[in-house]
């Protein structure tokens, strides 16, 4: 039963590589961590969306409320903001493809554009909020305002978080820390940014179109 010799021969080379380089096999630790984090974020937004639909169903006879009729115009400012955020998802992916090729200049350019588009989106959301506040729609103005500002507010907070992350990878990219082989942070941030974008598309469809 004792099998020392085969253990040595069978167990040397490959397991060593595996033990000292877990990250090299399959998906890397940071990216898996980010995917799981996004999973938890999906569940968080699921809770908010569930509350939105429950509230809307309970107030279906007055939705949107008569005082706020037509206040959420899908063809106004918010359309431009949506286009900007969707576009930023593309530039973000261009940045990932650039760094995968080892093209650092392309990576920095595309990340910078993504970062700026994210900031513009936040600015437009702030303008949108100011307009709505001016019309008397706030968190405390009944279920319509409560759900609208909670959902878009938490999305905005996530965009803000994403912009910070983009800032970090932009800074690190300019410092030359990424290469075709080592750019897990870029991949992870891009996944997060796409997630934020998908949440916005859902929010826009549900709040403005549905």
């Amino acid at each position, binding site marked *: 039963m004792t099998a020392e010799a085969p253990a040595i021969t069978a167990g040397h080379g490959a397991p060593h590589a595996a033990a000292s380089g877990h990250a090299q096999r399959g998906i890397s*630790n940071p990216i898996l961590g980010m995917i799981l984090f996004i999973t938890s974020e999906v569940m968080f937004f699921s809770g908010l969306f569930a509350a939105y639909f*429950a509230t809307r169903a309970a107030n279906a006879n007055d939705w949107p409320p008569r005082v706020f009729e037509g206040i959420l115009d899908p063809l106004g400012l918010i359309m431009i903001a949506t286009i900007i955020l969707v576009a930023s998802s593309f530039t973000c992916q261009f940045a990932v493809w650039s760094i995968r090729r080892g093209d650092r200049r392309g990576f920095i350019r595309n990340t910078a554009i993504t970062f700026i588009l994210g900031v513009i989106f936040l600015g437009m959301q702030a303008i949108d909020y100011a307009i709505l506040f001016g019309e008397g729609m706030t*968190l405390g103005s009944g279920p319509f305002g409560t759900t609208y500002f909670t959902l878009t507010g938490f999305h905005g907070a996530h965009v803000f978080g994403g912009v910070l992350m983009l800032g970090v990878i932009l800074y690190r990219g300019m410092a030359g820390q990424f290469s075709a082989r080592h750019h897990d942070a870029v991949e992870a941030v891009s996944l997060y940014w796409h997630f934020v974008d998908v949440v916005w598309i859902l929010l826009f469809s549900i709040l403005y179109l549905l």
Partner: protein
Amino acid sequence: MATHALSPAAVPAYRGGLYEWLTTTDHKKIGILYLVNSFLMFLIGGMFALLVRAELAFPQLQIFTNEHVYNESFSIHATVMIFLFIIPVLAGLGNYAVPLMIGAPDMAFPRINALSFWMLPLGAVLLLMGFFTEGGAAAAGWTSYPPLTERGPLNAPGPGQDLWIVSLILIGTSSILGGINFLVTIFKMRAPGMTLFRLPIMVWTMLVTSVLVVMATPVITSALVMLFIDRNYGGTFFTPPTGQAVLYQNIFWFYSHPAVYVMVLPAMGVISEVLPVFSRKPLFGYKAFIFATAGIGALGFSVWAHHMFTTGAVFLPFFALMTFLIAVPTGVKMFNWIFTMFRGQLTFSTPLIFAVGFLTMFLIGGINGAFSAAVPVDFALHDTYWVVAHLHYVLFGGSVFGMFAGIYYWFPKMTGRLLDEGLGKVHFVLMFIGFNLTFFPMHMLGIKGMPRRIADYADPTWNDWNLAATIGGFLIAASMLPFMWNVFISLRNGKIAGDDPWEGNTLEWATSSPPPAYNFDRLPEIRSERPVFDARHGIVGHGGHGGPDEEEAPKALEEGRHDDQGPTR
């Protein structure tokens, strides 16, 4: 290691004792921090329980001057016990054991691991600060249902409830980060040869638990956020007429029922490690156990509304059926455990006794739980002391007994010294008697119709059972004295444990006690779920060469320290 010259980068800088504990990213030290912090919380939560029990010993108000303080006491008791004791203490055991059991040098993200831990004391401080605010701490029970928790002169006017919300969001975030960390560790950091179906059962239960944490905890965060908006910014999620209080219950229980399995699955994992070792047999039905664990996790998401049968807002047959279904995988596990012991060579050491305590008490908790799943029975027993009896049989009789089994089992690995067997048995006997004296009478009280969360009662037939429960409660408190004394003297003069005092099966017994910072100099061959057993009995080669050897160990340590930095590595 002493003969081997480390490269300069791998030499750990010297750090003083306290500074080292405050800044550590070593999963073993963080695990011990979790255990110590959780035990302190156990004592604090226990104090509140004793206050509640003392008040209920006799009719009329004796201890508290008004009922509001009583409400604060049972609310903080439950919140502390669930969120700051049971969940973290099991996460702490997992934190200590999982990387060792899978032959990894550390968790996947050591610094996030430290962050997860340090959020807990902060959450505890926020929660308990409520007592020093105007209006006192949260007083709406651990469930904090609106409208009890809406802001209003008769509901929860003060900042205590807001502190409760913020504290729970913080603790939940800590859980989520911990869960992500466990999943990445288990999927990515296993030693060569450690396939998924060779994982120790404890690791499997932590895996399923972590999935539940990552999927369910964010949902309660959303409920808490909405409650906070309702309370502070004039939101109307849960406030009539346009909001719905039942919506909160749905979202809350969508987390809090899976959370029940978060609180018990790791304890099941602990006793599934303890029973085979002290029965000298492999676990009966290893794969069946894994599938049962996954089944409990999956079914756990479809039973939340059995907490809401009496609201009239849920589809009763579906949720009753799913709840009964959960008894099936749980029953499979009971057979696994019983047939592991059947015809085994039992050694009645303290860990085994606590594991058997788990089996018996959890069985009662499971049976009276299945009982309450029947809708008509639940309508009669809803919100009575029957429910209090049920949940304590599961969470105390189950999780706490399992947790103590784990403490007695791994204490020699953590410290290098054995706990005293005699004192351990005194601890068990006192706790077992005290536990049953406290919580068994609550079944009778529930059937007699005593509602939970009352400070005073007038039915004379409730007096004797209440007095018995109070005496039992103080007996449980007394059982902590031999335990704490045991830890204290064993740390100083306990018997030296050696690497493998129990002749264990899993990899943590293949390294020294306590293990070095990098965990393993060498790993045995992993050809089954019991690699150390195999190595001891010569089923595979001795000594093994599968893992990082002397050259690789510092590198592995380096790897563990910096893994969370991604590409800078």
